[in-house]
C-alpha cells in the first residue's frame, strides 16, 4: 500500500502557529534579545496576553527569559533559544512549501451558476 506524502501543513509547529506566538517568535528572531515593552508594543497585545504566550514558548524551550535591571529600572528580556531558532526556521520552510504548493496547484475556479 502506497502512503501519501504528508502535507507540509502537518509540519507547522503548533506552538509557533498561533498569531500572537508567531509574532513574538518572528520579532525575537529579527531583533535578538528584546525587552517586554518593545515586544508588547510591536505585537500589540495586553501585558497579560503577552505573558501567557511567552510562558507557553518558554515552557516549550523556545524562549529564554532573563530578568535584570536597566539602570535602576527592573527589566525583563526575551530571546530565542537555539531550539526556538531552529523550530522557527523549520516553520518558515514548511510555510514556504505550503505556499509553493498552493502556487503550483491553484484552487479550481468556482462553478459558474446555471444560466450565468
Amino acid at each position, binding site marked *: 500500500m502506497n502512503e501519501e506524502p504528508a502535507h507540509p*501543513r502537518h509540519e507547522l509547529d503548533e506552538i509557533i*502557529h*498561533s*498569531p*500572537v506566538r*508567531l*509574532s513574538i517568535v*518572528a*520579532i525575537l*528572531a*529579527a*531583533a*535578538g*534579545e*528584546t*525587552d517586554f*515593552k*518593545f515586544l508588547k*508594543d*510591536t*505585537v*500589540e*497585545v*495586553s501585558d497579560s*496576553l503577552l505573558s*501567557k*504566550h511567552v510562558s507557553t514558548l518558554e515552557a516549550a524551550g523556545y524562549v529564554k527569559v532573563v530578568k535584570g535591571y*536597566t*539602570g535602576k*529600572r527592573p*527589566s525583563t*528580556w526575551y530571546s530565542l533559544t537555539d531550539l526556538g531558532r531552529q523550530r522557527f526556521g523549520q516553520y*518558515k520552510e514548511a*510555510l514556504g512549501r*505550503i*505556499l509553493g504548493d*498552493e502556487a503550483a496547484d491553484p484552487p479550481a475556479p468556482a462553478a459558474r451558476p446555471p444560466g450565468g
Partner: protein
Amino acid sequence: MNTNSEESLEPTAATGRIERADRQVASSRRWHVGSMIALGCVTLAYFALLGGLAQAGRTSIVPNTILVLVPVVVVYFLLGIRRRHPPAAGRELQAVERTFGNVYIVALLPAGILTVLLPHPIPAVFMGIIPALPCFLGAWRAAHL
C-alpha cells in the same frame, strides 16, 4: 489591541506576520542608525561653526570652551529622555548605542581642547571627526547586527 489569541492563521497571513515583524524591527534599527549618523553630521557641522566663530573673533577662549561642552549637555539630555522611554530595539542595539554614546562624550574633550587651541574652521572640522567617528562607527555596527 489584539485580544483574540487563538484565531485561525492561514499560511499567507502567517507569512504576512513574519514580514511585518521583520519590517518593524528593521524600522527600529534604521531609527537608531539614522540618529547616530545625524549626531555625527551635526557634530562635524557644530565644530566647523565653532572654528569659524573663533576665527572671526566672535568668541574668546572662555566662551569657546563653554560652547564646546554644549554637545555633552545635549547628549546627556537625550540619554535622560531615553532612560524614561525604554528604547524600541534589541538589547545588543541598546548596548552599541550606549557604548558609542559614552565614547562620543569622552572624545568630545580632546576635540574641544584642540578646537579652542586652534581657532580655525578647517582644523575644527578635523577635530570634529574625533567625536563624530564613534557615531559613524556605532551606526555601522548597529546596521550590521
